[in-house]
């Protein structure tokens, strides 16, 4: 019982305020839309950022989403293939587009 208690304490340590042990940032499951192309989004985008980063950009044009994917490839060096880039662009435009 005592042993269990100690284990429980260790497990809780990272969550206690003002403790400079190892911190753990919680995982949040953002409500991203499922649909055609989602696998490519999951495989490429999630390496660097959460789905929250996508859905909290607000509704945007195809041009905007294409620009963002290009930025990830050109400036942030994300290894996204041309084929996946197009699939992701279509997915984002369909589910997070503004009709333009």
């Amino acid at each position: 019982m005592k042993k269990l208690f100690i284990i429980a304490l260790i497990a809780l340590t990272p969550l206690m305020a003002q403790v400079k042990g190892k911190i753990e940032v919680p995982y949040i499951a953002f409500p991203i839309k499922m649909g055609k192309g989602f696998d490519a989004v999951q495989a490429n985008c999630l390496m660097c950022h959460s789905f929250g980063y996508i859905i909290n950009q607000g509704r945007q044009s195809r041009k905007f989403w294409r620009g963002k994917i290009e930025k990830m490839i050109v400036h942030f060096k994300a290894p996204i293939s041309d084929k996946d880039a197009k699939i992701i662009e279509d997915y984002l435009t369909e589910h997070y587009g503004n009709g333009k």
Partner: protein
Amino acid sequence: MKRRDFFKTAALTAGAAALGTSDLSAGETKQPIDNRKISDVAFPEKRPLITYSDRPPLLETPREVFTSALTPNDQFFVRWHMPDIPQYIDEKSFTINVNGMVKNVLKITLDQLKNDYEQVEVTAVLQCGGNSRSAFNPTAGGIQWGNGAMGCAHWKGVRLRDILDRAGLKKGAEWLAVSGSEKAAYYETPNFVRELHLDELDDHVIIAYQMNGEDLPYLNGFPVRLVIPGVYSDSWIKMLSNITVTDKYKHLFFMDHAYRVPDNDCECETPEKPFPKTKPIYRMNVKSLIGYPVNGGKLTHKSHTVVRGVAWDGGAGIREVQISLDGGKTWDKAELDDGSQGRYAYRTFRYSFKPMKLGKMSIMAKAINKLGEEQPFAKDVKWNHGGYKFNGIDEVKVEVV
């Protein structure tokens, strides 16, 4: 149930979502989105806040916190750029490295920082350049922040000037490249490095290790961060670990492409006609926010009501805050605090009145700084592609019952 699973379940509806855009006519700036839910999940050393992303962490402070001059550490907003933040910092071995065009390369430990240099304090507002971005229409690029990508804290640390003096700048030194300990997922991704011109540094720029009398919260940059009073927070590097002195500006992604506005008088453009030349967002413009009451709140008919909030600017200081209860037709002066926190801090305001009419009403706040600059109506704030520097007159709508 594993912890990760628990978070999945708990957080499924916790994420803020900016979808559901305005029905206003295209191009008219509106009030920023203000009805986002506070997450069910708390991040380390934080109370639950409005949560846009966990990786990198992006947390917003809710409006009701902005009635006080200092923003509590556990409610202070959080914004990182890279997904990999060190999960542990060893206070004994952590150093701030100063190198490049210096006579003495320095590796300053936290002990040295706290003991070998003059200790100074400053109260200053830390505001993201994209704070209130969701006001822009059409939707500007970037996280659709509400009003709470900001806070004001009392910082303690050491003047950057004093550290550079100790290092001794070589002739021709002009720029500082400053970076922290966050890392990208891919080795090739450019690090988040900011460049500061030596002329931009005054004695108020400090490397801070304390925030409101405590160690910096981990997510606000423990153990040290740069504090640049009056200036938007993009260069307030967190977990500051390296300063390289150079003679030339290096064309880095985060300098040349991020945190910039059109380099024209109105700092504006249209989506169809982007302005080709840009400049850094730099000094904060004059702005205010009502912390009480909040949108959708209820006031009791004929009761003694006190509107409270904060006002700030880029360091000129706040001269006046005015309140309008008739949609901006007439304005009345609010009371200001004594300003003892200094010109970089929030100036709190209060305005007493009795709501005499039942039903819906609007409360607006407008700040004017000591240069005579005042906030425009939200609809008159001009668009820019990054959605930076929104400073429209704040408005909350309440119901008198």
